[in-house]
């Protein structure tokens, strides 16, 4: 049933159609809080993706033995275990990044994207497809966070990945790295995304009509 095409669909849906941050509006807390620099957004995205992949795979493997009534505690314990692993590894081997992400790494436990994917997808689907789903959603989450980080770091600090990206005469707008900047950036990104997808839908519709017209004419 699940052919090659549907694997690809499962992957790309997380990036575009079902992007967790920009379409489903899930996991907004880390998306708003840590994205004041590209590095933080990327680190957070990758950490959450790792947890998401592991949690989806484990949930999928155990989906036949986890009783329905006890599934949420089981999911949370699994997720918490992997988050703690990520936290310890970051502290041990990526000290600066773990300092920068601070409390938001432990908070991945309650990131609703991860629980939602376990609940809505991995608990009902096979291992491979759950893995692909997690990778897609994780990529969408990471991309959204990096995009926010780019916008906010550029306008709020005049740098990109810590390197100066603007002339010295540029006065960074501090508001962009403060909480209001997060909301403004998120709003603009969502607006841009809606505009693009509506435009695509319109173009597709017009193309369809044109084809139908052409077909009628030839008939």
């Amino acid at each position, binding site marked *: *049933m*699940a052919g090659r095409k549907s694997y690809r669909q499962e992957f790309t849906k997380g990036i575009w159609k079902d992007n967790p941050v920009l379409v489903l509006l899930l996991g907004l807390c880390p998306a708003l809080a*840590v994205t*004041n*620099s590209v590095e*933080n957004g990327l680190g957070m995205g990758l950490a959450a993706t790792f947890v998401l992949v592991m949690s989806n795979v484990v949930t999928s493997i*155990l989906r*036949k*033995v*986890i*009783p*329905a*009534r*006890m599934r949420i*505690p*089981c999911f949370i*314990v*699994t997720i*918490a*275990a992997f988050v*703690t*692993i990520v936290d*310890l*590894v970051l*502290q*041990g*081997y990526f*000290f600066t990044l773990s*300092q*920068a992400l*601070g*409390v938001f790494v432990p908070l991945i436990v309650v990131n609703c994207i991860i629980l939602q994917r376990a609940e809505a997808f991995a608990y*009902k*689907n*096979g291992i491979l*497809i759950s893995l692909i789903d997690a990778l897609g959603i994780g990529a969408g989450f990471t991309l959204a966070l990096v995009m926010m980080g780019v916008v906010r*770091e550029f306008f*709020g*600090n005049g740098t990109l990945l810590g390197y100066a990206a603007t002339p010295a005469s540029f006065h960074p707008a*501090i508001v962009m*790295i*403060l909480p209001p900047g997060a909301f403004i950036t998120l709003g603009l990104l969502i607006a841009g995304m809606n505009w693009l997808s509506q435009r695509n839908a319109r173009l597709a519709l017009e193309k369809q009509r044109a084809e139908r017209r052409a077909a009628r004419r030839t008939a």
Partner: protein
Amino acid sequence: MPEQEQHKPRPGEELALEPVKPVVGSAEAEPPGASAISPAIVIPPVAIAIVSSFLLALVYGVTKTPIAEAKKADKREKLGAVMPAFDNDPLETELPLTEAGAGTAGNVMLYTGESDGASSGYGITSAVGTGYSGYFSVVFGLDAEGKITEVRILESMETPGLGSKAGEPGFTSQFTGKSLENFEFAVTKDGGDVDAITGATITSRAVSDALRQGLENFTLPESGSGNESANGSGALEAASSDESLDGQHRPGGRD
């Protein structure tokens, strides 16, 4: 394949669902019908919890040393950056100056830098609870005269890119050469001498608090008071303080 599995109850689950009423806690469920807690519903979560704890214990064991090393390296690097030149390992001279334990607000630790066997300067870490997100600690160096050489943030949860600017030279350089005698460690808004960071007054205040707390708990050992190492530290200390005076005392700082 995925969808059809969704609502079909599994063998164990069917059994467990029969006495429906007491759904919540398994302990409460006992009196009406003990069959509410069937092995099928208890074993999986317990097994998952046990496996998880073993996994965590394993990872904790593996990462314990690297984490301690990373924290130590961070502290050592920052002490090296703020203290006058030394040739010992200051981390080995750690001495608590307040009763608050390490890692809690109010903690002040003293590190002594030695050069050729005599103390060349001091490093102090000071933690306060008044940061933008609570716990906040700085590390700063003192020359042999008790004047601040450099300041760095040790641990903080301040807003990255804003409050974290408190660790950059643009802010910290105003403390160089200062001590309690010639500087009021409070932001200008509160009537002190500290130029706060735009948009991060609270963090600037926390830095001021931490520095003041550190300095207030520190008394410069009297040279020749005899509590130093044996080999005539008084004279050597005087010599090194002269040296640092030449190097450090740029007239007319920023105030």
